[in-house]
């Protein structure tokens, strides 16, 4: 269980102590349960969270993105069992998102229209690297009323290598080997840290190479594990595989539905 938080040490502990004693006297004179409680007005909140998780792994010549397909309201209610959180933007760029689905749709629309304009202007598809930078700018553009999304951009970069870019809601960008975002992020990240990053094993321990087959298996297992212990993750795995020189493959695999 969590403890009381929020009190920080001040410059003058004696004055603070005196203040605390004063508060004790005041509270004892009229405790909360003897006064009529003030009703806090519920303020409208422009954001909501629809749960679910996504993860991405990049390898030498491939990138794999996966998400579950459950959409949840208030952590409890299931809105749909086949929501799409992975969006294939072109032949080499995959956007995967978690967070507020309304912003996800808007963000996808913005990116798609920018990609369309790029294609119109330059007669070529945008590369993953460029799109990654574009997304970062679009997110930071809304610095003070952000898109409430945990976005990840994956694909094959200009050199034919797999790429995963991870973002925070206001556009901080980072190119990583693997990443996860959403409700089960705290469960998936340590798993990938162990199995791909090998951060927990001894240096001289035998480390299996990250083949595309192994990456796909790890991704499936990560979501199977998350569905066991995280309530807003489940129903189906949406798996999107991008391999250099090959068309993007999409798959759906079953997960537990409870």
């Amino acid at each position, binding site marked *: 269980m969590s403890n009381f938080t929020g009190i920080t040490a001040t410059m003058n502990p004696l004055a603070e102590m005196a203040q605390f004693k004063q508060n004790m006297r005041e*509270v004892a004179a009229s405790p909360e349960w003897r006064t009529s409680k003030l009703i806090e007005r519920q303020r409208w909140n422009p954001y909501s969270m629809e749960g679910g998780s996504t993860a991405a792994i990049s390898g030498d010549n491939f990138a794999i993105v996966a998400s579950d397909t459950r959409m949840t309201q208030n952590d*409890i209610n299931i809105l749909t069992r086949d929501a799409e959180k992975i969006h294939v933007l072109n032949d080499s760029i995959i956007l995967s998102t978690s967070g507020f689905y309304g912003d996800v749709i808007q963000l996808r629309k913005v990116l798609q229209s920018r990609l369309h304009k790029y294609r119109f202007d330059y007669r070529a598809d945008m590369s993953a690297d460029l799109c990654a930078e574009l997304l970062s700018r679009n997110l930071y553009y809304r610095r003070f009323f952000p898109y409430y999304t945990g976005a990840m951009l994956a694909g094959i970069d200009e050199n034919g290598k797999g790429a995963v870019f991870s973002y925070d809601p206001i556009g901080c960008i980072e190119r990583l080997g693997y990443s996860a975002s959403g409700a089960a992020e705290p469960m998936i990240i340590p798993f990938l840290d162990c199995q791909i990053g090998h951060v927990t094993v*001894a240096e001289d321990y035998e480390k299996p190479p990250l083949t595309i087959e192994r990456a*796909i298996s790890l991704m*499936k297992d990560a979501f199977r594990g998350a569905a066991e212990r995280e309530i807003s993750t489940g129903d189906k795995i949406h798996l999107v595989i991008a391999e250099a020189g090959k068309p993007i493959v999409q798959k759906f695999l079953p997960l*537990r539905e409870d």
Partner: protein
Amino acid sequence: MVSTEVKNVAAHMDMDRGGAFDFSNCIRNQAMCKMGAKAPKLTSTGTTIVAVSYKGGLVMGADSRATAGNIIADKHCEKVHKLTESIYACGAGTAADLDQVTKMLSGNLRLLELNTGRKARVITALRQAKQHLFNYQGYIGAYLLIGGVDPTGPHLYMCSANGTTMAFPFTAQGSGSYAAITILERDFKVDMTKEEAEKLVQRALEAGMHGDNASGNSLNLVIIEPKETVFKGPIVPEFCKRPEPNDLVYKFKTGATKVLKNKTFKYDIIESMDISH
């Protein structure tokens, strides 16, 4: 000096309720909140509990998932509590409160049975629960379905944390109750057979477990009749099973953990103890 003053203040507050709960930190905590501290939030467990009465008996059931926030804390949590041989209570709400309240009820009812030499009645269990819960003004987060069979017939009651009680022919409680009640409203009939009632409760529970994130894993049933009480479970519905096993085996070979330091202790064995039996 500070501490004695606080103690006097606390004594004046007249908060001691004969050793039931310790309220001695209440004043301090409120003062801390005034200093800008944030109080910890209590979480209640999501649940689906269902009960249906039928001709001459009662079926009650619950799922087995306990959650702490969005994490499943317990996959095999027992939410069907035995009060007496033929009175059971299903609980939704704060897990610790439910355990304690049902333990208290079963103890009191057993004493009553021993003192009177008769079987306890369901209404007695209900009255005890509601008086206890009303005393605590809803701060004991126990939402109960109390049901059973006594010499006056089968009874089913709902008892809310603030002490509200109601009688029902069928009902559901907990976060999955919306999904479960739809099944009950559609398919409940008066004077069902035991098999019909059991199937209905199971279907309602499965709807709750399917449609509610905070319910699932497995279900437990209890069928209460004047002659005998049958407990069934845990039953695992098809959608609660893992559809596919893991692809890889996650077993670390020796050497995965780096050895930082080696130290050998040598002991002389002076006497050995026979632990074979």
